[in-house]
C-alpha cells in the first residue's frame, strides 16, 4: 500500500501550469491548486483508478492462485503484503479488489444520480402535489442511515454484488434529489430561465439545456463524495456477508474472512481495511477540494 501513499504525494506536486484567465474553470483550477488536501485526494484517486484498471497487468500473481504451503505468511520481499488464509497473494487480491470497488462505486453512484436527479428536478421545477409527495418520500428515506437502507434492500432482494450496487444506489438517491431540487429552485427564477420560458421552449428542454448545466458543479461534488460513501457501503455489505461473496477478492469480504486470524496473522484483515480507508479518504479529500474550488461561497474560510 506504500506506493499509493507515495503516489498521492507525487500528485500533489502539480505539474500543470495554471491557466491565468477569467473563465470559471481557470478560477476553479487555481483555487483547487491551493488546496493541498484536495491534491493528495486526487493523487490517491488517480493511483487507485489506474491500479484498478491495470490490476491484471501489474498484479504479481492471479487473485485465485493459492499456494497452500504459504498460508498466512507475513509480508516479505516476495509477497509485499503477505499471504492470506488460503495462501493467496494479498497484494494481488487487494489490487483486484480495487477493480470491484471502483465498479460498484461508479454504478451505485450512477443509479443514485439517475433516480435522484430527475426526482429533484421535477419536484423543484413543477412543485405541486407530485413534487410534495416525491419529496416527502425522499425525506423519509433521508431520515434513515444509508447503510441501513442498503442492508434492508439486500436482505429482501438477496445478497450479491449486483443487488448491493442497486441497494447502495437507492440509499444514496435522496441526497441527489434534495440537492437537485435546491439547485432547480435557485435557478428557476434566474433571468435566463425566464427568457427560455418566454420564447416558448418546452419544459424538458429548459431543464436539460439551461438548468442542468448550471447545476453540474454541485452534482459533481456530490458524486465525488458519494463515491467515498458507496465504496464504504460496499465494503460494509461485503463484510456483513451481504455483498460480494468469497472467493471474490472484495475488500469487505476479504476483511471478514481474515478476521478469524487476527491473533495469528493480523495482516490478512488489516491491509484490506487499510485499502478501504485510503480510497475513501482520497475521494473525501478530493470532493472537499472540488467543493471549495467550484463553490467558494460554501467554504467557511
Amino acid at each position, binding site marked *: 500500500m506504500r506506493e499509493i501513499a507515495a503516489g498521492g504525494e507525487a500528485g500533489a506536486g502539480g505539474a500543470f501550469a495554471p491557466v491565468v484567465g477569467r473563465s470559471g474553470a481557470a478560477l476553479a483550477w487555481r483555487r483547487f491548486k491551493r488546496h493541498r488536501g484536495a491534491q493528495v485526494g486526487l493523487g490517491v484517486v488517480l493511483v487507485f483508478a489506474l491500479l484498478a484498471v491495470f490490476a491484471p497487468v501489474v498484479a504479481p500473481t492471479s487473485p485465485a492462485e493459492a499456494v497452500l504451503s504459504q498460508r498466512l505468511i507475513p509480508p516479505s520481499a516476495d509477497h509485499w503484503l503477505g499471504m492470506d488464509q488460503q495462501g493467496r497473494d494479498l497484494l494481488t487480491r487487494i489490487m483486484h479488489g480495487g477493480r470491484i470497488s471502483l465498479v460498484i462505486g461508479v454504478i451505485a453512484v450512477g443509479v443514485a444520480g439517475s433516480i435522484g436527479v430527475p426526482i429533484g428536478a421535477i419536484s423543484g421545477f413543477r412543485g405541486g402535489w407530485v413534487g410534495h409527495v416525491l419529496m416527502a418520500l425522499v425525506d423519509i428515506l433521508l431520515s434513515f*442511515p444509508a447503510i441501513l437502507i442498503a442492508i434492508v434492500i439486500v436482505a429482501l432482494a438477496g445478497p450479491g454484488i449486483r443487488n448491493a450496487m442497486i441497494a447502495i444506489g437507492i440509499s444514496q438517491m435522496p441526497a441527489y434529489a434534495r440537492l437537485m431540487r435546491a439547485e432547480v429552485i435557485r435557478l428557476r427564477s434566474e433571468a435566463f430561465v425566464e427568457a427560455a420560458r418566454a420564447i416558448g421552449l418546452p419544459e424538458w428542454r429548459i431543464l436539460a439545456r439551461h438548468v442542468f448545466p448550471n447545476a453540474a458543479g454541485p452534482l459533481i461534488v456530490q458524486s465525488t463524495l458519494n463515491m467515498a460513501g458507496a465504496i464504504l457501503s460496499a465494503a*460494509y455489505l461485503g463484510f456483513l456477508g451481504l455483498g460480494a461473496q468469497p472467493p471474490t477478492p472484495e475488500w469487505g469480504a476479504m476483511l471478514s474472512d481474515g*478476521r478469524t486470524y487476527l491473533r495469528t496473522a493480523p495482516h490478512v484483515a488489516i491491509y484490506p481495511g487499510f485499502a478501504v480507508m485510503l480510497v475513501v479518504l482520497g475521494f473525501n479529500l478530493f470532493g472537499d477540494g472540488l467543493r471549495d474550488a467550484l463553490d467558494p461561497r460554501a467554504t467557511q474560510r
Partner: protein
Amino acid sequence: MRDYLTRRALFAIPSLLAVTVLIFLALRAVPGDPAVLLAGDFATMEELAAMRARWGLDRPLVVQYALFLSHLVRGDLGDSIVSDLPVRDEILQRFRVTVVLAFAAIGVALLIGLSTSLLGATRPYTVWDYGSTVVAMLGVSTPIFWSGMLLILLFAVMLGWLPSGGVGSWQAFILPAVSLGFSAAGIIARQTRSAMLDVLRQDYVRTARAKGLQERRVIDRHALRNALIPVVTIVGLEFGRMLGGAILTETVFSLPGLGSFLIISIAKRDYPVVQGIVLWLALAFVVINMLVDVAYAALDPRIRYA
C-alpha cells in the same frame, strides 16, 4: 412551545405510516409465498394455514395492511421463526445493548469531536487547526470495522487490557464505543469548527473582546454557546446514524445487540424478526428526528414555529 410539540408529533404520524406501508409492501414484493416467509421453510401445512389466517394473507392487500397495522399498534410483531418467541420480546431484550453502545459512542464522539475542533477553531490556521482537521477527516473516512479491528488488535490481543467482545462487563463496551464514536467525531468536529469560526467573526464577539474580557470568557460565554446550536442538530442526527453503525460495531465485537441480531436474522431468513427490527428502528429514527427539532427550537430563541 407546547403547540409546536403537539404539531411536530402529529407530523411524525404520516411518515411513520409511510414507513409501515413501505415495509409491508417490501415483504410482499419478495418472490415466494409470504406465509412461507413468515412461518419458515420447514413449517407444516397447519402452521402455514394459521399464518395465513393470522395475517389475512389470502385476503386483499388493503385488508392485509389493515390487519398488519392493527397487530402493530397492539405491539404484536409476530413470532420469530428461529426461537418461536414473540419478536417484540426478542427485540426489547437486545435493544438495551444497542442503546448503551449508542450513548457511550456519542459520548466518545462529543469528547473527541468537540475538544479537537475547539482547539483548532480558536487557533485557526495553526498546527492545532490542521491537526484537528486531519483527525476529523480520518474520522469520516475510517471504516468502522477497521478501527474496531485495530482496537481489538492493540488493546485486546497485544496489550490484553480490555476484552475483545461480549457483554461480560462494562469494560467490554469501551472499545466498541471508541470505534463507533470516532466515526461520528469527524462530522461533529467539522460542524463545530465551521460554526465556531462563523461565530468568532460576529460583532458581539468583537465587542466582548473590545470591552476587555479575557479570551477564555469570550469563548465560554459568548462564542461557544451560540456555536453549539447547530451542533445539537448534528449530534442528534449522528445518534441516529449510530444505530445504523451499531450493526457493524456489534458484528465486529460480537455484542448481542439489535444490529448484530438483524444480520443474524437476515442470514437465517427469519423474516418476522427482520421486519420487526426495521419497524422498531424506523420508530426510533422518527422519535430521534422529532427530539432534534424540538431541542433546536428550545435552544435557539430566534426560532419560532408559530
